[in-house]
């Protein structure tokens, strides 16, 4: 690493994060399971086909429209499992609390966490609590690890995308990121937008059960948004993806906030959306199945995998031009000029 201290951008999920993992974290720990480098690791134990993942949550502010850090701590982890084609079963919960944090707020967070766990059908099976001195933490940091059981015959790794596949998005982009930013000090604005945080297993399970071989990739566009998620696909699968800007669903309020702050809605985080890449032959059925579920009502096909420009994610713009989408470098900074 050329930079010798950690920057906030190293946690942004973009190029800086990738390099931190590749250069500092992965080499000393290298093993075949870690080498999968997916949202969740596939492990087989005594014949059980498991998926294993962990995620930490440091969101600021802790509460935002539609949820809190507790909601995220469940959704983020169970969705990593679901996108691996695994039914989420158990979570562990690690808490780092800051001295002086109000217990009433902690109760709200844990209530959100419990509600989300119930909705996701998972049990919180073990936990740990540590307290740090006042001023050394952001109130509450959470970590959850999750374990799930993979559906047989299913593989949803990003490298599975094939030329000709349809790229389908389960709903509108950017709701979560903008709902959180709306509450941030210095940027605050009023909006009726709420986080889209939701567990996605029940949305994708019917697809996997009906088309186990034809669902090639599942991915949730969290940090770095749609752009980062699909750049992972083009890089891993060595093919290109062509998106149509006019088909990408974005709520007017998200567009408005992005206009105000100079953000790109395609790189804003989501916590309750799935990208489904599937064989063209089943695309219409997949769309119909997604739209049958409340979380997939706004599902729409946004593009196609192609062999024409390997490794490149290209957006056909609203006026018929083209623009290459590259993974965001780090945290996306609101800009004014």
């Amino acid at each position, binding site marked *: 690493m050329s930079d010798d201290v950690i920057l906030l951008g190293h946690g942004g999920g973009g190029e800086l994060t990738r390099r931190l993992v590749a250069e500092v974290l992965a080499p000393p720990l290298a093993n075949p399971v870690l080498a999968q480098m997916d949202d969740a690791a596939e492990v087989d134990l005594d014949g059980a086909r498991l998926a294993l993942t962990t995620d930490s949550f440091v969101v600021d502010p802790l509460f935002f429209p539609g949820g809190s850090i507790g909601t995220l701590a469940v959704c983020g982890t169970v969705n990593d499992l679901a996108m691996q084609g695994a039914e989420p079963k158990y979570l562990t919960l690690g808490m780092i609390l800051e001295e002086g944090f109000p217990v009433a707020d902690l109760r709200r967070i844990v209530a959100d966490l419990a509600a989300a766990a119930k909705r996701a059908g998972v049990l919180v099976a073990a936990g740990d609590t540590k307290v740090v001195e006042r001023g050394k933490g952001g109130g509450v940091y959470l970590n959850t690890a999750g374990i799930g059981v993979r559906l047989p015959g299913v593989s949803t790794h990003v490298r599975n995308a094939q030329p000709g596949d349809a790229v389908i998005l389960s709903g509108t982009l950017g709701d979560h990121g903008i709902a959180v930013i709306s509450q941030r000090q210095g940027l605050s604005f009023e909006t009726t937008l709420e986080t889209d945080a939701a567990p996605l297993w029940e949305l994708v399970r019917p697809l996997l059960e009906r088309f186990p071989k034809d669902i090639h990739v599942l991915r949730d566009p969290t940090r770095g948004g749609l752009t980062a998620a699909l750049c992972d696909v083009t890089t891993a699968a060595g093919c290109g993806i062509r998106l149509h800007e006019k088909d990408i669903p974005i709520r007017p309020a998200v567009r408005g906030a992005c206009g105000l702050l100079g953000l790109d809605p395609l790189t804003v985080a989501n916590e309750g959306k799935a990208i489904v890449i599937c064989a063209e032959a089943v695309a219409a059925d997949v769309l119909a199945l997604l739209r049958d579920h409340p979380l997939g009502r706004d599902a729409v096909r946004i593009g196609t995998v192609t062999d024409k420009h390997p490794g490149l994610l290209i957006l056909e713009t609203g*006026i*018929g031009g083209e623009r*290459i989408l590259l993974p965001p470098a780090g945290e996306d*900074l609101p800009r004014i*000029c």
Partner: protein
Amino acid sequence: MIPVREALEQIRAATVGLTERAQFMEVCGTHTAAFFRSGLRGLLPLNVRLLSGPGCPVCVTPVGFVDQAVALAQQKQAIITTFGDMLRVPGSDVSLEQARATGAAVRMVYSPEDALALAEKTPAREVVFLGVGFETTAPGVAWTIKEARRKNVRNFSVLCAHKTMPQAMRALLVAGDVRIHGFICPGHVSVITGAGLFSFIPKEYKIPCVVSGFEAGDLAAAVAMLLRQRNEGRAELEIQYRRCVYMEGSAPALALLDEVFEPADVAWRGLGVIPGSGLALRAEFAAWDAERKFPGLTLPAPREPAGCRCGDVLRGVCLPPDCPLFRRRCSPTTPVGSCMVSSEGACAAWFKYGGTMDGVEDNMRNPSAGG
């Protein structure tokens, strides 16, 4: 308003049989970003070439300004407040983002008023706002400074690097090292100053100017208007952005600028010191001028990164891919020059939206054929 498609047809018709490639400069960084983001740039015929100008405020801010801001945070324990774009601009030693990682207090704000509000909330700490931007941004900063005086907020100050557009454009024309057949003039600067600010260009230099809006339809129409002027042998100042630009500017905004600021000779990255091209706080506002308030900062010798051609890019002398560092040592993740930092910087725009490694320009026009 005409649809983009129609404007593109006009452009195509106007460029049939052009013997020399038409080179237009979009002065404003927001225009640069819009040309790329909308995909309009790639839809223009090959014999229309767009050059990016010195209208990206972050890009033209010299490295010494970042050094000053870092020093204020580190040596005076000031809270630095800034628009997001400045955070990653490399200083001689470190950027504000890197300084923040080692303990400096650096906060991003949406508006200068937010910085003043922070100062009122934290009376024990000095809050310094980084005043960067052109005529569009400076009036809001002027208002905020007046408000600080009215409320007698003594722990608020502005480190001022505001610049004004026309002198920089004149400097480009005087230097004459790039051939420009027309200017797409900044629309929102003109809202404040009035389009008349740019009338010296057609008058003295016989170069067509069109003040443009910021959507793809605006920009396509502006290019068509420049081509029409060129084909008809005219050099005039025209306004495409009629829905908010007039020959005269905004009287309240201009009054604010005049009351708080006075013209100053300031340095532009790539262009050097241009007389009268900056805005400095008038003496009566010295108490809110970070530079006067905190003399004697220890600053590193300003060091522009070796090999970086930001300066040439800002003058339109070269395109970003012509720089030896572009896509090699310099990327949005590890920016070497400021033009790679700002989302409006020409280098960042080329990197993000421009195309693949080789044959950038042709690839950009038709990426799917490039492979």
